């Protein structure tokens, strides 16, 4: 990573949000857009794309970004710093302008993900309290300049992705379980005792409604990323921190009664190298797509039976978002984006000097 403050300062001085019109006009579906972070040369950006791979907006970032959160009610999109970063940048989507940069409060850093309330009035972020090492959910008042108005214990260590349940009241939080401290770089400090969990939290008062863990012998399966179906069923993408000779299924499901590990064929678990990077449902909510950048593959699953439907190969693939149509997904990895279904894969764009980062979100 060559980017330093040295470079960012000069980038910022010259930076304007580009709004270049797409040069290719054979749109698949006029309105659809996606946004993801990327490394371009030695700089970091978040980039808005259409389905043809045309760039609609680039937002310069001070350092590597990670997850993104959108609010259609508010016309805002938030780009989060990669762990253990402390910045989050808020963009107004229709005007393509940066409206604000927020910073984690003293003694905290962001874990890279967040989500809005349905009315767009509150932003929820996963954070680390450095003193205690405990996970925190920060609550920010959007209308009051994203001021931090409350902090709730996440119920575990290392909360990573969180998402709002369809009831609009409950936050689902993936407590990854891994203790880190920026003073020790990204060293994992508690692999022997880690205890990941899925927590369901009342977003209004921060009360933990329920906490769910895998069996004790599976405590090294870190619960990190999630997707929630319109029915409220949660699927979780896992990362295994135990010996590499162990083969683990990396898909867990929650339908109201505790976590269940999906059955996965050994050929797949071997290929995924104990690491899933991102997970989403397709637009119908019937199919799950889960990426493995270490395995250079994406696997597709039936959202009801949790059986494997198929897989596709794509180098360093991690970003995945629902596509335009039922069964479709958009993928990002290396310098490419692709359109995918469980049965097909086609390139949708190649981007100069680009390394697409972990996550991609659809933008209404």
């Amino acid at each position, binding site marked *: *990573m*060559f980017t*330093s*403050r*040295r470079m960012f*300062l000069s980038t910022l001085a010259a930076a304007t949000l580009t709004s270049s019109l797409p040069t*290719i006009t*054979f749109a698949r579906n006029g309105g659809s857009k996606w946004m993801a972070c990327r*490394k371009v040369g030695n700089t970091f950006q978040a980039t808005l794309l259409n389905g*043809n791979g045309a760039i609609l907006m680039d937002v310069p970032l001070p350092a590597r970004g*990670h997850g993104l959160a959108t609010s259609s009610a508010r016309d805002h999109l938030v780009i989060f710093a*990669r*762990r253990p970063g402390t910045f989050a940048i808020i963009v107004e989507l229709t005007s393509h302008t940066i409206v604000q940069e927020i910073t984690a409060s003293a003694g905290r850093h962001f874990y*890279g993900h967040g989500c809005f309330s349905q009315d767009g009035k509150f932003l929820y972020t996963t954070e680390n309290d450095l003193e205690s090492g405990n996970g925190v959910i920060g609550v920010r008042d959007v209308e009051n300049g994203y001021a931090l108005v409350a902090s709730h214990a996440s119920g575990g260590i290392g909360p*990573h992705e969180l998402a709002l349940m369809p009831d609009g009241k409950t936050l689902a939080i993936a407590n990854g379980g891994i203790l880190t401290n920026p*003073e*020790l*770089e*990204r*060293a*994992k*400090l*508690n*692999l022997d005792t880690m205890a990941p969990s899925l927590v369901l939290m009342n977003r209004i008062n921060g009360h933990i409604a329920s906490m769910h863990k895998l069996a004790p012998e599976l405590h090294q399966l870190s619960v*990190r990323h999630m997707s929630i179906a319109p029915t409220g069923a949660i699927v979780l993408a896992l990362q295994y921190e135990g*010996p*590499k*000779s162990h083969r683990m299924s990396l898909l867990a499901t929650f339908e109201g009664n505790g976590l269940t590990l999906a059955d996965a064929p050994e050929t797949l678990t071997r290929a995924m*190298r104990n*690491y899933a*990077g991102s997970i989403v449902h397709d637009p119908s909510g019937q199919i799950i797509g889960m990426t493995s*950048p*270490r395995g*250079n593959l994406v696997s597709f699953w039936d959202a009801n039976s949790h059986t494997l439907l198929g897989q596709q190969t794509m*180098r*360093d*693939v*991690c*970003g995945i978002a629902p596509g335009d149509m039922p069964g479709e997904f958009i993928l990002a*990895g*290396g*310098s*490419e984006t692709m359109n995918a279904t469980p049965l097909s894969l*086609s*390139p*949708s*764009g*190649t981007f100069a000097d680009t*390394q*697409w*980062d*972990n996550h991609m979100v659809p933008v209404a």
Partner: protein
Amino acid sequence: MNWLWIGTTLICAALHTAPASADVLKQNDYVQFANALTDTIVIPAYERFAIETAVLNETLVGFCANPTPEGAKASFDRFHDTMDAWARVQPLLFGPIMNAPGPARIQFWPDKRGTGQRHLRRVLGSQDASVLRAESLATKSIALGDLQALEYVMFDNPEALLSPASFRCAYASAIANLQRSRAATLLQDWTKPDGYRTQVINAAEGTDAFFDEREAASAYLNSIISALEIIRLQKLDRPLGLTLDSARSARAESWRSARSFRNIQLNFETITALLSAPSGLNDLTRKAQKPDTAAALAQLTDKIRENLSRFEQPLSALVSDANARPKLEALLTSFRDLQSLIQDRVARDVGLVPGFNATDGD
């Protein structure tokens, strides 16, 4: 979809993924690469570190019992020998050293928040006797028992070591004893029957530490890249600052013992050894039939070695010297060029390009 668009994309994709090496390098080439570096560089470096920390500990124990100026000189010499051995190990950023809490348990640096000094001032101020035994020291903040703490205790007030029943002297021995024990454990963790050496040697069959031999080979390649990045960003760029006004000499590594450059030189010796050892990275590049890349590597490493040998004053002084800064900037650029060469060209040539997301860990 437009056919021209698809065609262009596929051609681009083909250019990106054409790994010239894949056909040339065989499984055994990666196995030989990782095995050779393990046995000729890694194990000897950890052996040396284990020996030097043990000798330092013995020397300090003897000196504290009978504090003479000769004993003081021997103790400071042995401190430098220990740091020399550590600087040779430092670029090997994988294996047991990465177990929690990572390399910081040997050297807590960079200490961006001043945590170490805060703890040390408290302990030295209160003469907290609980730090005088390695066993209890091991349970405290790592910033109280690492080589950075030892440097502070010895170099911040060297005369204090000579007073009879010196607290500082006893504390320095306790740190040396703790480091002796940690260095011995690191060596054992590599060499014991099912240790990390075995994990590397058997990587091709899949082990608890590696999925395959390419992952073991990648551990070495990525370690070289990370070590170069640490030299650039932490060891040179941070003390240098953006401008003369923002130079910070106390951000130089080991500034109290005036050995910032020596650390970098020895780091670089290990890095070049990983390149030039028989079956090392240069040989792997040649086996991949990329002699131009191998030549570029050799040329750039020679240039850096020569540049490094030209600095005669401590880095902590030079960062604030307007005349020296251009030379330091040039050194920084050479390190950046070498990192780019290895990260972009060598990695591609030997078929070990690290995936951006694959190496992310989030």
